[in-house]
Structures are given as C-alpha cells and as structure tokens.
C-alpha cells in the first residue's frame, strides 16, 4: 500500500485547460522536429547516390548490429509505456523501475551508435570523407543527439518523481516525455527502413 500514491484527479477547469494547451504546444513543437528530420532525410536521399570509389551504404554497417540497436530502442519505448501505466495506477516504485529500464536501454542504444561511429572514423570513413558520409552521420547522429537529450530529460524526470511523487506537474512532464520518446522511436524506424534496409537491398 505504501508505494501507491494517488494521482490528483480533481483538476480545476483552469488546470485542465492549461494541460491541454501545454500538450497541444508540445505536439506543435514535435511537428517542427518532424520537419527538421524530413529535411535531413531529403538531404540524405540526395547525397546517397552512386559512389565512385568512395564508401557506399552497403559497406559501412552490419545489418545484425543495426537490428539489435532497433530492438533495444523499441524495447526502451515499451518500457516507457509500462512506466506511464504504472504512474497512472499511482505506483511509484513500478514507475521508477520502468523509467530506469527505459534509461538503460536508451543509453545502450546511444552507446552502440557511438561505437558504430567511432569504428567508421577509425576506418577512415568519417563524415568529412564524402557527401554521402556527411549526410549519413548527420541524419543518424541528429537522431542520436535527440535520444541523448531525452536521456538527460529522463534523469531529471526520475529525480523529480523521487522528490515530489506524482504531482500534477510531474504527471504532465511524464506524459510529454513519453510522447517525445515514442516520436524518436518512429523516426528511428524511418531511419532503419530508409537508410539501412533499402541500402542493404
């Protein structure tokens, strides 16, 4: 019983309106992020073309590795969903557990990506070697940067929940984080398909 904390359901009209406004605002920001990624995808599509003596997509990655990365990130998203469910039921311990799982898996994803990039650079296939590599590193790297920022946000969120439990502010921040995290998941799926899968065909 002690790890339950009831979320405050008696929100005033003003509070509900404010939450709805914040949510709409966050979705609007997310749409700008979508346009940002769309531009990077367009750049990648233009620069990926046939390479003359330089590296092309086939010879710079291993599909099993990327597949594993994808599973890690998707599982991280799943864990985030479980965290949200636990929070709605007022379970502090459960929420924190699943948020930490989200973090660990997300950090693993970023670590794998850094490892992949470092390996490429060591082989002399860094972003300054060709237009294609510039586009590849920037598209995938921007996604990784967003994930990293998400991880930092997650730490802050975990600390906030530990300190103040499921206050209205924390519930709202948790909901926004979850939307952000799932959004990054969707972007990754596009990257996986457009960059890696079609590249390996």
């Amino acid at each position, binding site marked *: 019983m002690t790890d339950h904390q009831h979320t405050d359901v008696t929100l005033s009209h*003003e509070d509900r309106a404010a939450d709805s406004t914040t949510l*709409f605002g966050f979705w*609007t920001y997310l749409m*700008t*992020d979508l346009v*940002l990624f769309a531009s990077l995808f367009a750049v990648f599509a233009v620069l990926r073309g046939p*390479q003359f003596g330089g590296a092309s997509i086939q010879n710079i990655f291993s599909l099993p590795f990327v597949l594993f990365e994808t599973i890690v990130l998707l599982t991280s998203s799943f864990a985030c969903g479980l965290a949200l469910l636990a929070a709605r039921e007022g379970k502090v311990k459960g929420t924190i557990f699943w948020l930490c799982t989200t973090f660990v898996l997300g950090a693993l994803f970023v670590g794998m990506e850094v490892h992949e990039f470092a390996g490429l650079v060591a082989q002399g296939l860094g972003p300054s070697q060709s237009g294609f590599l510039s*586009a590849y590193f920037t598209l995938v790297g921007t996604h990784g940067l967003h994930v990293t920022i998400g991880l930092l946000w997650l730490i*802050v969120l975990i600390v906030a929940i530990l300190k103040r439990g499921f206050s209205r502010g924390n519930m709202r921040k948790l909901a926004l984080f979850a939307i952000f995290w799932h959004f990054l998941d969707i972007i990754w799926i596009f990257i996986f398909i457009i960059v890696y899968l079609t590249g390996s065909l």
Partner: protein
Amino acid sequence: MNWQEFIFGRLSWSVLPQNAIAWGGAIFMIACILILVGVITSFGAWRWLWREWLTSLDPKKIGVMYLIVAGVMLVRGGTDALLLRTQQATSVGNSFGILSATHFQEIFSAHGSIMIFFVAMGLMFGLINLVLPLQIGSRDVAFPFLNSLSFWLFCAGAALINCSLLLGDFSTAGWLAYPPLSELVYSPTTGVDYWIWSLQIGGLGSLLSGVNFLVTIVKMRVKGMTWMRLPVFSWSVLGSMSLVVFAFPILTVTLTLLYLDRTAGMHFFTAGGGGNMMMYVNLIWAWGHPEVYILILPAFGVFSEIVPVFSSKKLAGYTSMVYAIWGIVGLSFLVWLHHFFTMGAGSDVNAFFGIMTAVIAVPTGVKIFNWLFTMYRGRIRFTSPMLWFIGFVILFTLGGVAGVVMAEPPADYELHNSLFLVAHFHTMIVSGVLFGYFAGLTYWFPKFFGFTLDEKWGKRAFWFWFLGFILAFGPLYLLGLEGATRRLDHYSAALGWQPLFAVAGVGAGMIAIGFCCQMAQIVASFRKRHENRVGNDPWGGRTLEWATSSPPPSYNFAQLPLVHARDAFWASKHSGVPLEGQFEDFSMPKNTGAGIIIAGFIFLLGFAAVWHLWWLLVLGFLGAVVTLLIHAFNDDTEHLVTASEVMHLEAGLRRTPSTI
C-alpha cells in the same frame, strides 16, 4: 593546438576594423551603447529596467521591446543602404567609389540579413505581441516564459550580427550565402560564420514564437469567439505562424549543414567531395519563400483592420479573405523554385513552378479587391494609416506585376538576378511589409500609450517614404532591363547607367528623411501627449482590443469579454448588448530573468562558434541548460489576482465595471 589557439580561437588584433568607414560604424555603435548605459546609470534606472522590462513576461512590454530593437536595426540596415547607393552612384569608369569591392559585398549581405531577420521579423513579432492577445480576448499568450525567451534570443542574434562591426568581418556572399562561395575555401574568414549563427539564434527565437502564437490562437480565444468571428488580423497571424512552424526547421537544418561543412570539413554543399550546391539552393528557398509570406500575411492583416475602421464600414468578403489567407499559405510551399529558374531544372519543372507562382497572385489580388470594396460606399478618413494603405495598393500592385512577369520562366532567364528583380522584391517588402507595419504602429499606438502619434509628422513621413521609394527603385526596374546585374560594386561608364543610379541615390536619401520624420514624430508625440490623450476607442474600432482602456491594464481586461458576433466590439456598441463578463480570479505570470539569462548564454555560444572558442561554447551551452533546468523546477511562476483586487484596481483608476 597550443594554449593560445585554445583560449583565443581565431581572435587576434587583426580582426579589428581595417578602414575608415568600418571604424566609423564600430565607433558609432560603441558610442551609442556607452551613451545608453550612461543615461540609464544617471537616472539610477537599472533596477527599474530589470524589474519592469527585462524580466517582464507581459506581451505588451515584450512587444514594445521588439519594436525598439527593430527600429535600431532599421538604422543600421538603412545606413547600409545609403552606403550602397552612394557606391553605385559614384563607382563608374575610372572611379571606384567609397568602398572596396569586399566591403561593398559585406554591406549588402548585412543589409539584406538585417532587414529581413531583425527589422521585418522584429516589427512583426512586436505588433503580434501587442495586439494578438487583446484581439482574441486573452490575458496573455499560451507560453509566457517562451515568449520572453524568444525575444531575448532575437536580441542575441541581433547582438551577434552587430559584433561583426567591431570584431572580424561579415559574409560577402549575399543575404542567403550560396555555396560554394560561402564555403570555407572561398570565404575563409569569420564572416559567413557570423551570418550562420546570428540567423540560427534569431531563427530559433522565431520558431519558438511561431509555436507560441499558433497555440495561443487555437487554445486561448475568449468564450464565444468561434473561428469565423476571429478578426482577420488574428487569422493572418495564424496563417503566418503555421508557415513559421513548417519553414523555420528547414533553415535550422540548412544553416547547421553549412556550418558543419565549414568547421568539420563535411561535404554537404562543397564543390567536389560529393557535395551538392544545388541542394543548398533548394533547401534555403524552401525556407525562404514561405519566409516572405510569413512577413506579408500579418501586414495584410493590418490593412484588413485599418481599411474598415477608416472607411467606417465592415470588411467586404470576410470569408473570402480567410480562404485567401489559407490559399496563400498552402501555395507558398509550391513555388520555391521560381527563385532559381536559371539553375537548369528543365522546361517541365520550370513551367510547373512558374504556373504555381502565377496562381498565388490570385488570392493576393482577391484581397486587394476586397479592401477596395470595403472603401466603396464607405466614409473614408485619410489619416496616415489610410495613406500608408493607399501607397501600398499603388506600389504593391505594380511590384506584383513585375513578379508575375518574372514568374514566366523565359522572362526570368533574362531578368533573374538583375536590378529588375531587386526592385521587385523591395517593392513587395517595403510597400507591403513596411508600409503595413508602419500603418499598424500608427493605428495601435494610442491603445498602448494612451495618446495618438502626431499626424502632421506622420503624413510627412509617408510622403517622403512613398515618393522616395519611387525615386529609389523606379530607376532600378529600368536598369535591370538594361542588363544591370545586382550586387555590382563598379560598372563601365559606356553603359550609361550612372544617371539612374544617381536618381536612385536621391530616392534613398528621401527615404532617410522619411525615417527622420518618423523619429521626429515620436519626439513630438511624447511632447504633446497630454493634449493628444485618448480613451479606449479613438478611431471607432471594431475589434476587442478597443474595448479595454488605453493603455490596457497588465491583465488586459478587468472582465473578460463575452463574444456574440464578428467585430464583437462594434456589435456591442451598436446593439447595446454589453460585452463584459464577470469579475473573476485569475493567475498572471511572475517576472523572471531566465529568458534574458539563457539568451545571454546562447549569445556566448554563438560568439564561440564563430571564433572557434570551444571552451566558451561548452560554457555557454551548459549555462543555458542549467538556467533552463532551474526555471523548469521553479514552481513559483504565477501569482493570483482575485476578483476583488481587480474591482479595487479598476475603481481606483476611476473606471466603473460597466464601461470596461
């Protein structure tokens, strides 16, 4: 890298100005800053400034600050213009004018960048901050802190572009910095980096404002204000902000990629190495075309408010006007290639974009017809806002014709990048955006300051701007047809172009006098403010902002209005049905310094990125993040204002509840 390179990056003594005119600019800027600091200190006003203005989240105050910064940047952009005109009028044959070629190129690049990003955007966001919340019957915008942060980021961008007056040079690649000219190999100095970072930071502020105002209009309209009761100015802001949200991320990406090319040796747009410079042109104009509609739509909105009021007649074709706005918004994403018909995309592609460009003239024309028909059978007062409107109709129509001509690809093959093009876009931006915002400023000034602007100086300003514009840009249409390319710092005497450039110079001088008239207008108006005091409705207004006092209280409305019709205030005046709702409790945001502090750190980040001071970049970034986190965890951001407090305040100001 030795310790000196690490600490100082690319800074050195040689980055100070290199010639007399450059020193003049730098010294003038420093002198202005010192005088300002001195005046504030002598009045002991630092605390007041911090408390009342710099940390304020009141959009009315933020709006005034935007307008002041935009005005200051107009001085710089305008001085640039005078220098450019002087050079082109004198640099003929054996004379090479007053500026070196490189300096001339820096000046026109700065002129364009400043006018678009810091004058036009500043005027626009200033007016929106002032007017929008009042027009929709709201006490504030959706995200007050974000609003403050956006303004201070705008200032950080402006500060960075002004740094280039003293330290280093500016880009010589034009206001859009096409590669490969803007790549490191052809522009090795800090110039292009200043351009990148001042636009990046200012652009971030604009993007955040776009989100903010869009959410405000969607979510914070007062009860009863359904979509088709929204004033046309507010509709135009919604259209413009929708464009901001879609277009500005493209700019963010493009600037970042160019910076990566220059700093990390990447190959997005380089000549060779797999780069594609045509992709840059596409990306930058995919942002750039919506940008000009972002600027013009609220100006159209201003005219939609002014013409009905000064014709004492409701706006003709409200529904048409709304559809025209959204037609323009949609179409503005389908025309970007008309900026580079000559790049060789082929006839099919060129023809498609040419046709779409011509199509976008239709909703624009519809708007002009609706304004004219608002005047039809009205009772027209020729106040200076109406004069700005009439000047706009005359010039904008003609400039629009030039645009439709160039929308035909074969015509553009001749006229692209000529002075005909330069004349066209200046006509659209000056007579559309600038005249519109000048009209709006005059129209709404009494609402926010409680007294009108001096009409005599206002009319003088109009005539100097209008006639000056004709003299300054009329010759340029002709010069373009004579084969004059834009951006020339010198030309042969045999071409016979000098008389036209001389006339253009005179025109530019007249515009400068017009601006001085506007400064005189402000001084004269403040002097005469007691004689020209006005109440809540000096013009016979139609929309909600005229229902509250002049100036409004910080909370905008003592009682939020209940809206029953379009032109709600006018409806209430003439039907007798009162507008105001109940007295109630509400929260207002508390002041915070987080906005200016975060922007300060971002300024340091931008400066560091330009000069390769990586330690400072990290510091700036961390400072911004930490401040943001502190603010995010600050729960004490609002204070409650009770109904009885408001009643007391209103009674104390001798306003009874029944007359808002």
